[in-house]
């Protein structure tokens, strides 16, 4: 028999003309137009709520002229993207070569980043009613042509940074949707978690970015679970590299086996957990375990992975009980609690979550 863990629900403070739960129902079940309107209202509601809190806090000490500009919050959320050119240096404040309002850039890497960062913004807004990385309309800022022959991409706390690749290992990293979405999702983790970038919490941080990154691609393609390949960075392996991607969420440890890169070291079960002081305690290695847990949930439930499985994982990331230093087990317990809250204690979603964590050796 399944029981609901004793984790209290997050407090919900709602005060708007149409309650958020009604908007959420419309967003989930309404037609396209109604759904879009409800999502915009939800995102605006979130912005209004935060402004209302700020206003309350400032009312007693600030003059009226210092109150927040409410009218800006009433406008529906819109994408705001910005691409800078590092010009093959480490300069992160290089010239701006693409903006939301400006013309297309002649630089195809800038256009690739612009498009993929935009698709990621769309995913978060359409699926989770999230207004950008910080939920408050933060501009999405990308930096392309970082350093020379740089085989990496990263999130530095405020920007997504992309190398062009050396051509020996990788080609331009901004040309992969899953890589772009992975980096944006690190920003989301920063604002929702955060999860300390070390050991198991760091591996959870990496796993969330992987999971959300592949969900962006699946959503963009309207791809059912049965058609998903669960790969991150499929497009950027250089010619001659023996492999299919940077990582496989469904089959950790199988993404590549190459003379130069070596063999994919990711485990898919706690039996293979790697203790190391490198890579912040193996955050890119042990993330294979929660990655596989997610794919097991999604495969068990079928349909579209961003719907039930994605909702459970995303809500778990933002859950008030998620500790910055969470272990796999602690996170797993939160996913079970969230699944029971969203779908019911005896639901197939809860069973899928329990079986998935058991399948990767994490005891609830």
């Amino acid at each position: 028999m399944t029981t609901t863990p004793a984790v209290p629900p997050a407090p919900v403070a709602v005060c708007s003309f149409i309650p958020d739960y009604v908007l959420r129902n419309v967003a989930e079940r309404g037609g396209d137009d109604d759904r879009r309107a409800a999502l915009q209202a939800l995102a605006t509601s979130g912005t209004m709520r935060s402004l209302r809190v700020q206003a309350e806090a400032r009312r007693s000490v600030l003059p009226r002229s210092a109150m927040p500009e409410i009218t800006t919050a009433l406008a529906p959320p819109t994408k705001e993207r910005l691409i800078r050119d590092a010009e093959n240096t480490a300069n992160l404040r290089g010239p701006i070569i693409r903006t939301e309002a400006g013309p297309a850039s002649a630089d195809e890497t800038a256009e690739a980043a612009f498009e993929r960062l935009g698709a990621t913004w769309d995913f978060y807004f359409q699926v989770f009613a999230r207004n950008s990385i910080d939920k408050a309309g933060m501009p999405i800022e990308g930096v392309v042509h970082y350093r020379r022959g740089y085989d990496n991409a990263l999130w530095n706390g405020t920007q997504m940074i992309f190398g062009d690749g050396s051509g020996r290992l990788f080609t331009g990293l901004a040309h992969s949707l899953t890589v772009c979405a992975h980096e944006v999702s690190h920003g989301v983790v920063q604002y929702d978690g955060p999860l300390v970038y070390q050991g198991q919490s760091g591996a959870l941080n990496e796993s969330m970015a992987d999971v959300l990154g592949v969900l962006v691609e699946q959503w963009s393609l309207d791809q059912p679970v049965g058609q998903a390949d669960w790969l991150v960075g499929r497009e950027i392996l250089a010619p001659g590299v023996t492999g299919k991607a940077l990582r496989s969420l469904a089959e950790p440890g199988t993404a590549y086996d190459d003379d130069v890169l070596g063999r994919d070291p990711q485990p898919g079960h706690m039996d293979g957990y790697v203790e190391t002081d490198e890579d912040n305690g193996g955050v890119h290695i042990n993330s294979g375990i929660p990655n596989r847990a997610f794919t097991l949930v999604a495969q068990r439930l079928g349909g579209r992975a961003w719907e039930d499985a994605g909702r459970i994982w995303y809500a778990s990331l933002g859950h008030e009980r998620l500790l910055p230093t969470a272990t796999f087990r602690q996170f797993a317990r939160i996913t079970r609690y969230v699944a029971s809250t969203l779908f019911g204690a005896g639901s197939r979603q809860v069973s899928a979550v329990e079986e998935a964590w058991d399948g990767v050796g994490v005891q609830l």
Partner: protein
Amino acid sequence: MASESSSEHVRVHFRRSGGLFAGNRLEVDVGREDLDPAAAEALDRVLDGPRPEAPPAPAGAADGYQYDLTVRRGEEVVSLRLDESGLPPELVPLVDALEQRALDRRG
């Protein structure tokens, strides 16, 4: 600054881990005499100071490289762990040179 005689015995072990994916690891061991002047000067700073400050990565940062440097001069050993997002500017020539040497060696 390291003298000419002591510089002959200075070696640095460089290890890069992290990055967007787990397989992008590099390692190399280099003598000071094989470094370009800017990199050698940065190496001297590690030994004879003022020691460069190595701030932690900015909050929330992810996928940057983690650099581990172990510098040896006789019995003296200095170890530094640096995050790419918080790399002290005075150490950039050294890290760049070591990274390039490791990449050349990897082929």
